[in-house]
């Protein structure tokens, strides 16, 4: 049985309607909403204070606009590899594990073993591979530990999902709890600067930067009119640029301290062709994967949701004026936008790289590199295993991911995989 069927069958008993009359009070919501609008002034004031504090401590970040300079040369793309070979990574004595992060050089990868939820719960372990060899197998400091990123020095960042997430970093054999309270680090660059989102509640969550493992959480200045809870940091580049999602749009703090929204030019963005892409059985079709029906939103500006830096570009989703999600990348130095893939490509991105939806394929520059499945993923029934890609090296010589079992059978384990390409 595939996970799709298993999940639907397992959770079906929970389906139903509320079993008591509604107590929702719309008039109260409007009254309270008016008060909250009134408080936005103060929220903005706090953000301004935060901005001043950040400027006085860090000295570089500030909101503001400005037209970026336009160099003549775009960031270069690596050559497309000719062939890639998959290999399962060692996972010590754990029954199963996932690879969830990789560094830009393609040398370091990090992931976690699966936790055990029986009583007493068994914490999962942080696993770090260097050049494909398991070099760290460390019991996590809390249950449900997840790894978000690892840099070229082998420093990993992650969080414990125990209700209020606690941010951690791992370096040289030790876990370090990051300052600032509940939150999650999302990325670390090779200089050791970490970015993430911190706050006691979702509505109070702010984007922050840690300049080192022991540094305080330094709030990033919010643009005018934006409140905490509306911003989620996505990544930090090697030059210190930081990109975030605000609403459905993108925002960039540049190394020089300026901040600006990432606004794709208005215009017509052709939709992907509707010719079906071959997908494993049980997967939704391309048409079904369109996030919104293409019926409304005339006059809505296109929006860009950034997800990751890669080789000088910001990769992300562009939501067109006709409500179609397209894979795009943006070069902030030259203010250049580029559509990715072919006319039939929908977008999916994650981690340190960009990957193509339901296909085992990674973007190298603007083109797709299709990766062969490992022999262990071969299955008599198509669609029972699938690959989750999470990182690609800047030189496109190493791709990291996991083989995820699509079967409702505990004997089918998740396994970390890397592809070596040449």
């Amino acid at each position, binding site marked *: *049985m595939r*996970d799709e069927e*298993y*999940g*639907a*069958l*397992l*959770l079906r*008993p*929970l*389906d*139903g*309607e*509320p*079993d008591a009359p*509604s*107590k*929702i*009070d*719309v008039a109260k*919501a*409007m009254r309270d*909403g008016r008060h*909250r*609008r009134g408080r*936005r002034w103060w929220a903005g004031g706090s953000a301004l204070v935060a901005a001043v504090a950040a400027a006085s401590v860090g000295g570089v970040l500030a909101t503001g606009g400005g037209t970026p300079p336009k160099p003549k040369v775009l960031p270069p793309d690596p050559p497309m590899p000719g062939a890639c070979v998959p290999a399962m990574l060692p996972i010590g004595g754990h029954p199963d594990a*996932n690879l*969830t992060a990789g560094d830009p050089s393609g040398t370091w990868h990090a992931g976690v073993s*699966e*936790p*055990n*939820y*029986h009583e007493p719960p068994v914490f999962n372990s942080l696993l770090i591979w260097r050049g494909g060899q398991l070099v760290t197998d460390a019991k996590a400091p809390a249950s449900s530990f997840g790894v978000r990123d690892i840099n070229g020095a082998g420093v990993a960042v992650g969080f414990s*999902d125990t*209700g*209020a997430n606690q941010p951690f970093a791992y370096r040289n054999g030790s876990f370090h709890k990051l300052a600032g309270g*509940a939150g999650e680090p999302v990325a670390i660059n090779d200089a050791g600067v970490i970015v993430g989102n911190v706050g006691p*509640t*979702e*509505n109070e969550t702010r984007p922050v930067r840690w300049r080192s493992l022991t540094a305080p959480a330094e709030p990033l200045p919010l643009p005018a009119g934006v409140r905490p809870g509306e911003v*989620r940091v996505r990544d930090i580049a090697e030059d210190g640029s930081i990109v975030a999602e605000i*609403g*459905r749009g993108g925002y960039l703090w540049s190394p020089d301290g300026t901040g600006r929204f990432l606004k794709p030019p208005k215009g017509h963005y052709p939709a992907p062709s509707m010719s079906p892409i071959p997908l494993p059985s049980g997967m939704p079709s391309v048409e*079904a994967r*369109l*996030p*919104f029906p293409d019926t409304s*939103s005339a006059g809505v500006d296109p929006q860009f949701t950034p*997800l990751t830096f890669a080789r000088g570009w910001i990769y992300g989703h562009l939501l067109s004026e006709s*409500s179609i999600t397209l894979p795009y990348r943006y070069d902030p130095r030259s203010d250049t936008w580029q559509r990715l893939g072919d006319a039939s490509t929908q977008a*999916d991105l*994650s981690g340190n790289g960009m990957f193509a939806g339901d296909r085992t394929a990674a973007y190298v520059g603007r083109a797709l590199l299709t990766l062969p499945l490992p022999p262990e993923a071969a299955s008599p029934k198509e669609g029972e295993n699938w690959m*989750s890609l999470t990182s690609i090296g800047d030189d496109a010589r190493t791709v990291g991911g*996991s083989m*995820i*079992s*699509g079967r*409702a059978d*505990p004997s089918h384990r*998740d396994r970390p995989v890397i592809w070596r390409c040449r």
Partner: protein
Amino acid sequence: MTDESDAGYLDYVHGRIPALRRVAFLLSGSSDEADDLVQETITKLYAQWSRISRVEHVDSYVHTMLVRAFLDEKRRGWWRVNLRGAPPEPPAAPPGTSEERTVLRAALRRVPARQQAVLVLRFLCDQSVADVAQILGCSEGTVKSQTSHGLNALRRILGDRVGGAL
């Protein structure tokens, strides 16, 4: 906010409350908690209505707000647990609730909050992977991973039982 804008808000909210309440109920498993989540969501929506009504895909945005309110409640719950120094007693099952449903809901509550949200949105609310990715502000790959991890967690808690064999 103008009267015209208020009217637009009221039209929208009155038309969506039943659907929002159902999603909130499926997420939380409790009518009371569902009402709290929807109340918080429509309050926040009113505070931002002038902006959201013009430029956003409102339904998707409101679902994001609702799920964030749910995740927020999970965090608040964690603080309450820690202030009390011991885990709270699980809520009593409402009258007429089957044992199967009670066991399943208790198991779901032990899964990390985002995985709970992904499982409920995908398998009880019939949302596509792409829609859940939009609602949670993450990639489709993350949604699929969270789905797999969430189901694995439930499998480990409950054993390999499905279809009423709890």
